[in-house]
């Protein structure tokens, strides 16, 4: 391949070369952007769970409390028995496991959302450890409580204060800003799991609606191998029955409702269509270009270029144009990604995962996790698109130049 000749061809036939480069650039940009957008929606759907270092949240639906007095269960989170917890914990594919207990506590002077969890377990609400704004995190067996920052402000709660919840007194060890972490597992007061379990066991309202033993729970937080989440969900349903809700990134994705979020198949289909159209445009442009150059190819062959020499030269031109198209397409898609990254998405949190009772003011309002669409173009996608465009150049250039290299110089030269 003669690079000087190649360079001059591309430079002096700018319109032709630019048409090919831009056609491919647009196709590649569409391909990359669709994939980046699809990935961004998937990533956004993972955020609510990612923030509490969890892949699945399991709850069981039950009956509504008979009387709103003292500690009660929300109807979306009733008892998960210890034996069920133990069976689930042993399932293959589980990489981390946490359990919690959500209680609504109706005391005479105030209503409190209480979440009990194991402060030493990093999965689930244990991630709040990094959100402590004052004081220190919970310690097991010390009768302590964490107060959520807005709740503490409302009731003027300070570190070291004693609060009474469900008739029991706890000392506030720290203030935590749960709003920074997630919309899931937000409570007013956080307790050690043992204390919360004791409170639930002693509550008549809880026992009337959903019998509860001292080691039971009502929310499970599971970290799992992403490839096994669907299998795990089926196994959990097998253990707990159908009346459960399992929140995964896929369920959040469904709530998002965007075309890009609906399925990977949509992205794949659109990408394939973009790819096929791109290849056809490149083929048409290159074929047109080569047809215009029949005479030139005849000259090359007359002065002693072999078919192979012609194929190498023309394929080289095609590869360089497509490589430039791929790079330009990547630049276009980087610009598109940075613009799309300005879009804010509201991820609806399913009502059953919202800890606030629906009958309280504002409790029935839809809850959203709002975030900027994390549109990024991975090195892998960038490298793939460059390799793809180069391959398109090699294949189209190779096929077309092989065909045109067979022309007889005498035929094209005598027509002049």
């Amino acid at each position, binding site marked *: 391949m*003669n690079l*000087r*000749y190649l360079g*001059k*061809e591309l*430079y*002096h*036939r700018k319109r032709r070369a630019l048409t090919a480069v831009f056609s491919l650039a647009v196709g590649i940009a569409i391909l990359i952007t669709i994939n980046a957008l699809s990935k961004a929606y998937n990533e956004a759907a993972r955020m609510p769970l990612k923030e509490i270092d969890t892949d699945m949240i399991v709850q069981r639906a039950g009956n509504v409390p008979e009387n709103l007095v003292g500690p009660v269960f929300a109807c979306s989170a009733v008892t998960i028995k210890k034996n069920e917890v133990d069976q689930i914990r042993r399932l293959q594919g589980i990489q981390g496991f946490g359990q919690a207990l959500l209680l609504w506590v109706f005391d005479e002077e105030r209503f409190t959302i209480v979440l009990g969890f194991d402060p030493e377990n990093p999965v689930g609400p244990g991630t709040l450890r990094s959100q402590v704004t004052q004081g220190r995190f919970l310690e097991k067996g010390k009768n302590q409580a964490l107060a959520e920052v807005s709740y503490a402000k409302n009731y003027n709660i300070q570190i070291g204060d004693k609060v009474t919840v469900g008739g029991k007194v706890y000392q506030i060890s720290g203030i935590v800003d749960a709003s920074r972490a997630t919309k899931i597992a937000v409570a007013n007061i956080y307790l050690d799991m043992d204390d919360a379990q004791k409170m639930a066991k002693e509550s008549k309202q809880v026992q009337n609606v959903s019998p509860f033993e001292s080691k039971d729970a009502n929310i499970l937080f599971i970290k799992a191998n992403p490839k096994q989440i669907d299998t795990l969900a089926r196994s959990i349903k097998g253990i707990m029955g159908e009346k459960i809700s399992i929140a995964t990134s896929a369920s959040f994705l469904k709530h998002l409702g965007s075309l890009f979020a609906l399925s990977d198949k949509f992205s794949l289909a659109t990408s394939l269509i973009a790819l096929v159209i791109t290849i056809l445009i490149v083929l048409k442009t290159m074929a047109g270009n080569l047809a215009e150059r029949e*005479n*030139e190819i*005849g*000259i*090359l*062959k*007359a*002065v*002693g*270029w*072999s*078919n*192979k*020499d012609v194929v190498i030269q023309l394929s080289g031109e095609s590869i360089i144009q497509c490589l430039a198209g791929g790079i330009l397409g990547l630049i276009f898609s980087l610009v598109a990604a940075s613009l799309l990254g300005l879009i804010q998405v509201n991820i609806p949190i399913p009502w059953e995962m919202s800890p606030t009772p629906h009958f309280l003011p504002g409790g029935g309002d839809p809850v959203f996790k709002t975030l900027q669409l994390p549109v990024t173009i991975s090195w892998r996608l960038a490298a793939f698109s460059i390799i793809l465009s180069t391959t398109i150049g090699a294949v189209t250039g190779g096929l077309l130049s092989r065909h045109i290299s067979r022309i*007889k*110089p*005498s035929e094209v*030269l*005598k027509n*002049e």
Partner: protein
Amino acid sequence: MNNILTAANLNKRFDDLQVVKDVSLTIKKGEFMGLVGKSGSGKTTLLSILSGLEQPTSGTVSINGTLITDASENELAVFRREKLGFVFQSFHLIPTLSAWENVALPLFPIKMDNEIRKKRAMKLLSQMEIDHRAEHRPSTLSGGEKQRVAIARALVNHPEIIFADEPTGNLDSETSGAIMNILKHLHKENGLSILMVTHDQDLAASIDRIIRMKDGKVVS
């Protein structure tokens, strides 16, 4: 004098039309031979066959002992590059390349330092007295200059024979004379064998030997 080209019983048929009919001829080393005839007499087709640009329907052509009618397409390409030079009526220069690059075009597929290619091309352009136009593209050259570039290109690979198809056909009489002088000079000074197709009787008069064609046959 040895023959550089020997053609025997050449026939060429395009569908129902026979354009070359049982032509046999020889060209001696260092000979300047003219192929004349009216338009449509088959002279360009015969030149294409003799130079390996076209395969005959039947018959043989050998150049300096190599039977080119038996050669594959790629063997012929290499043979043309190494042994033959071509000058066409329409110049057939590559529009995107400069004059010197056009001259060096047959050398592009050969692994060679670009400076050497340029040096060889520049030497020939200097011989053709257009080295000052070396960096110009064909669109900025006059007809005579284009043909000089084409002749330089035909010489760049030190050919054994040059095939010229109406090399003055697109030129005015003054420029035609100049181009003919160059070809004659190359023949006389360098001992080059040349086969030139022309229909210009005046030009043909100054050539060593003339073959006349009519209706695909050699008539004299």
